C-alpha cells in the first residue's frame, strides 16, 4: 500500500470514527468500509482503526477474523460466493462449482493472479427456492447452470475493463 493511500484511508477511518463519537458500535461499519475500498483489512489499517477507536489492534483483529465478509487477505475485485447449503447442493451446486473453477482457472478459496476474482463457498444465501444461487459481490444470481457461468463471469470482467471501481458495481 502506498503511503499516500494509507493516509487517505486513515483520514476516512478517522472521519467515520468521529461521526460515531469513537464509540465501539461504529467499528464494524468502518471495517466494512475498509474491506470495500481496499478489498481486505491490512495490519496497517487495523492499527489505524484501533487508534481511532482507542482499542488494542488485537481487538480489531478478533472482530475481523470472526466475520466471513471481512478478511485479512486481499480479495479479488469480484468475490464469487457460491451457496453450498443443502437446497442449492441438491439443485446442482457441484456442477456449477466445477465450471466456476474451469472458467476462472482457480480452486475454491483462491484468487485469480490478475486480482479480479476470488472464488468461495458460502452458507445459505436465502435463495433456496431458486438454487443453485451465488453472490458476486452484492449481486445475487439464481438458477445458475454450468452453461451460464461463463456469461456471468464475462459480465463482470467487461465491467472491470470499463474501469468501474469497486463498490459501484451493485
Amino acid at each position, binding site marked *: 500500500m502506498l503511503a499516500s493511500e494509507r493516509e487517505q484511508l486513515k483520514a476516512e477511518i478517522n472521519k467515520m470514527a468521529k461521526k460515531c463519537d469513537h*464509540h*465501539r*458500535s*461504529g*467499528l*464494524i*461499519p468502518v*471495517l*466494512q468500509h475498509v474491506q470495500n475500498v481496499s478489498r481486505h483489512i491490512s495490519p496497517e489499517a487495523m492499527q489505524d482503526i484501533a487508534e481511532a*477507536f482507542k482499542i488494542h489492534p488485537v481487538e480489531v483483529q*478478533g*472482530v475481523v477474523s*470472526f*466475520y*466471513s*465478509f*471481512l478478511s485479512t487477505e486481499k480479495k479479488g475485485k469480484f468475490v464469487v460466493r457460491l451457496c*453450498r*447449503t*443443502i*437446497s442449492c*447442493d*441438491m439443485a446442482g451446486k457441484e456442477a456449477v462449482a466445477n465450471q466456476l473453477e474451469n472458467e476462472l482457472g482457480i480452486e475454491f478459496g483462491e484468487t485469480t493472479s490478475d486480482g479480479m476474482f476470488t472464488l468461495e463457498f*458460502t*452458507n*445459505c*444465501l*436465502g*435463495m*433456496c*427456492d*431458486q*438454487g443453485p444461487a451465488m*453472490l458476486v459481490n*452484492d*449481486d*445475487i444470481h439464481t438458477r445458475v447452470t454450468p452453461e451460464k457461468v461463463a456469461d456471468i463471469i464475462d459480465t463482470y470482467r467487461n465491467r472491470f475493463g470499463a474501469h468501474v471501481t469497486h463498490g459501484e458495481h*451493485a
Partner: protein
Amino acid sequence: MSKTEKKLVIFSELDVEKALKNALQKTRPDIIGEVRESGLKGRGGAGFPTAVKWNLAAAAQGERKFVICNADEGEPGTFKDRVLLTDYADQLIAGMVLAAYATGAREGIVYLRAEYTYLRKDLEATIEKMRGRKMLGKKILGKDGFEFDVHIHMGSGAYICGEETALIESLEGQRGEPRNRPPFPVTVGYLGCPTSVNNVETFITALHIVEKGAKWFKTFGTDKSTGTKLFSVSGDCEKPGVYELPMGITIKKLLETVGGPDAKAVQVGGASGTCVPRKDFDRAIAYEDVATGGSIIVFGPHRDMLEVAINFMEFFCEESCGQCTPCRLGTETLLEGLDMLDEGKCSLKYLRELCSLGETMQISSKCGLGQSAFNAFLSIIENFKSEIFDTRCSCR
C-alpha cells in the same frame, strides 16, 4: 417465486397508515394485551411469546430503549424474510413503530444480513418514504410525545448473529458471540438498554393482529400455535416458494400443497430442526409438535440421507462461534463420525458414543446453535440407519 393463493393473515390486505393510526389511538397496555390474547409467538424459530417480550421491555427502566428487527435470516432453507423485506417492507417498519410505541422505545435498528445487501437500497427508500409520511420521526402521525426512527445496520456474514444476544454483540462492534443469560436483552440489551429483538415476520404479524383483532387471528391455527406462519419450501418438490399456511398443518397436507407427494423425508426447521421420515408425515407443524421458523426442505426418494446429515454438520462446524467447548469440539467430532459412517468404518458402539456426545451438547452448549446442532444428526441416523449401513458397508 410462488406465493400461496389464499391470503390469510400476513399476505392479507392492510392499509399500513390506517393500521398505525388506529394503533396509536390505543393505550400501550391495550396493544400488548391484544398481542397477548392472540397467542403470537416469535416467528424466527425460538417461539417466545411476543407479548411477554414486549411487556418486559415496556416495564424495564431505561432512559433509552431499542427495538431491533432481526433480519439476519440465515437458517438453511429459510427465505421468507427476504420476500417480506422485498415486498412488505412498509409493513415491517410500521410493525417496528408499533413495537416501539408498546415498549416505549425511541430508536430502532434493522440488522440486515450481509448476504441481503442488494435489498438495502429499496429498504432505505421505504424508510425515507415513511419519514415523509410522518410514520417515522417526531410526533408520529400526529401523536404527541411519540417519536421513533430506524436505521439499517449491515451484518458481516455470521449465522450465529441471528441469535439475539450475538446480534447485539455484533451491533456493539464485537465478535458475534452469544451472551450469558440472564440478564435478557429486554432488561439489558443494546448498549445496556432495554431492547426488544423480534423477527421480521413477527413485526408484520403483530401489526395485522392489532389492526384486525386477536380473535380473528385465532380463527387460524391450533390452541397452542395460533394463527398462520410463512413457510419457506425448497428441495425436491414441484412448487418451491413461500407459503402462508395455518399452524398445525400436517406435513402430508403441506406436501400436497407444494407438490412433493413421493418425498421420503422432510427437514422441518432447517439445519437446527428435525428430519421427519415418511412414516411420520401425519405429524403437525406447530410449537407443540414439530416446531419451525419456517424452513421446509423436501427430500425425494433418491436422496442419500447421510449426505444430507454431512452437509448440515459441515454447516454447524463452520458457523459455530467457537466460544464454548461442547459446540466447538462437538460439531467437529460429530462430523468426523459422519465421515466415518460414509466410509463404512463406524462401529455401532462408536455411534452410540457419538449420540451420547450429542446429548451432552444439547444440555451444555451456551446457545441454541450448539444445543440444536445434534437434532438433524440424531433424527437422520435414527430414521435412516439401515439405509446408511446398507449402502456404505456393501460398497467396500
